Structures are given as C-alpha cells and as structure tokens.
C-alpha cells in the first residue's frame, strides 16, 4: 500500500528540502539530511497533509524515526 506513496511523496520531500536528487527510502531520516531541521519538518508534515488530503493529529508525528514510519502513518490516514 505504501509503495506508490514513495513515488507520490518524493517530489514533496524534494521541494520542501530543496534537494533535487533526494531518494526517498524507508530508512532515510532527518539525521541523514542536513536540510531536514525542525522548521523543514513542519513544512514536510503540512506538505504531506496537503498532497494526500489527510490530517495528522498532535502526537502523531512526535515519535517518527524515519521516512518509513512517516509513510506508514500517512498510509493509515488514507
């Protein structure tokens, strides 16, 4: 269910983080991407909400460890 989401969210992550060749993998995390700071994280969450037409709630995003968990969470909202 999540495989198509990686294709759909790759341009979102590339736009927000301003990295044209970013490859979205489940293991990728903020620790791997210098541009992925707290402000970028807010922009990512909002951009994903808008792209997928979903809403995260407070607490949803606090414990996310990597892109894989982020995408799984997003998929659960669809």
């Amino acid at each position, binding site marked *: 269910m999540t495989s198509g989401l990686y294709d759909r969210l790759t341009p979102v992550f590339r736009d927000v983080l301003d990295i044209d060749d970013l490859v979205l993998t489940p293991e990728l995390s903020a620790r791997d991407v210098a541009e992925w700071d707290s*402000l970028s994280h*807010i*922009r990512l*969450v*909002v951009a994903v*909400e808008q792209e997928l037409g979903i809403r*995260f*709630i*407070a607490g949803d*995003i606090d414990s996310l460890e990597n892109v894989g968990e982020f995408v799984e969470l997003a998929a659960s909202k669809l």
Partner: protein
Amino acid sequence: MSLATAKSLNIADLHEGAAASDDFVISNDDMEKFAALSGDLNRLHTDEDFARARGFEGRVVYGGLVVAQLSRLIGMDLPGKNAIWNGLDLQFRSPLYVGQQANAELTVTHLSEATRSIELKIRVQTGDRLIASGTASVSIANAS
C-alpha cells in the same frame, strides 16, 4: 498601535476559511523611510518622471512595503502575538502607487493541528485590481 491591541489566536480558535483584512495607503513618508532603511533608491520608487517615462502612472510602491502590511496582519491579527512566520511565496501582479488605497487579505487555507501551523492565502488588491497574491506559512506558539 501597540502590542496590547494584538490578537492572540490559538490553533483551536482557528478554522479553514478564517480571514483577516485591512485597508492601507502607502504615503510619501513611508516611501522615504523605506528607501533609507533598505538602501533601495531605484528611480522607479523615487522619481515620478522616471516612473512615468517607464509607462507607470507614478512612483511604484516598494514591494517590501506591501510585505510589511502582511507582516502586520500576521503578527497582530491572524494569528497575532503567537505567530512565528515560517515562509512566504508572493508574486507581484501589478503596481501599487503612492497614496493609492489598497486592501490586504489573509485567509486560512490549511490548518495543521499536528504542527500547530496554518497556511494562508494572500491577496492584495486596489479596487478590483490584484496587486499581489501568494501564500504564507505560520506556526502558532503556545500562548505566553
């Protein structure tokens, strides 16, 4: 105007479609102060004859002064004193002239409870003519 007049809207107070707007006029004094502040002495903004020779109706208001009106609306009204302005994407559509009345309007288009942030649609108009349009991203800090 003082901080006491600023609104203090929290994320729970807002909804998509919530809006704030205000009329404004940029004066000669505003233009001179911005020229001194920014160091931008481009004749489009400072020389009436030059601006007319370029096909404009008069001196064109600095885009920075239009942005200043948006800053006031965000910082004082929507959401007010708890605002943390994160981003701006703005296109200037047509010139605003000194002394011309305009209206700036912000509308909440997306509300993210998880990040305590809002996306705002921006429209700046004079009469029916669009001056600038775009979006702004604003986080809302816990009320202090």
